[in-house]
């Protein structure tokens, strides 16, 4: 079984400041890792994904994440946030088996960008 832990339920941050959202996972097999963003009253939108290769992954809207296998982490970062980045962010893991591939989500981190 796999699980995802997002260590911070809320992160307040000032506009133009950097932000890091932490995500740790556990799994007995190789995994794929994802970050999704959910704006108010909307569905989830894929920000970025790690499938293989380079451990630094760049996504949309200036976000990036780093896969660290030894620490089983996949932290999300943005060097300078905008008001429009106010949203909830979800880390997710998918097992690396063709028969499965369902997504298991963390509890989410709510980011509030202040002017």
């Amino acid at each position: 079984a796999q699980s995802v832990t997002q260590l911070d339920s809320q992160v307040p941050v000032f506009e133009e400041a950097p932000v890091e959202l932490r995500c740790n996972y556990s799994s007995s097999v190789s995994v794929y890792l994802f970050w999704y963003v959910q704006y108010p009253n909307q569905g989830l939108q894929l920000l970025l994904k790690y499938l293989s290769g380079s451990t630094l992954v760049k996504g949309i809207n200036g976000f990036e994440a780093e896969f660290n296998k030894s620490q089983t982490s996949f932290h999300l970062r943005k060097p300078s946030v905008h008001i429009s980045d106010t949203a909830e962010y979800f880390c997710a893991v998918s097992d690396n088996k063709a028969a499965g591939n369902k997504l298991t989500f963390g509890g989410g981190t709510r980011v509030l960008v202040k002017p």
Partner: protein
Amino acid sequence: DARVTQTPRHKVTEMGQEVTMRCQPILGHNTVFWYRQTMMQGLELLAYFRNRAPLDDSGMPKDRFSAEMPDATLATLKIQPSEPRDSAVYFCASGWADRNYGYTFGSGTRLTVV
């Protein structure tokens, strides 16, 4: 952009009534998921289908919930009878499981059972 379409967007119903939520996945996607989102439990996987066949519905209360894919363009989630604790946002997502490119989510159905 291709999108996953869910209907209705909002539903208010009385306890005991039947509720049907619909999802039109992106054409060509072979996997469809149903998730439920609540403040207390977060995102929970209810069921998912591969090539229209149910793969896993262990997250679904079997006595009142049912999920089907009558054809490749329609997935349904039914609750009968509905209860106040079913109040949540229900999301459908579709994608290509074998390629693991991530899944596309619909905008959700916000269900309120009173």
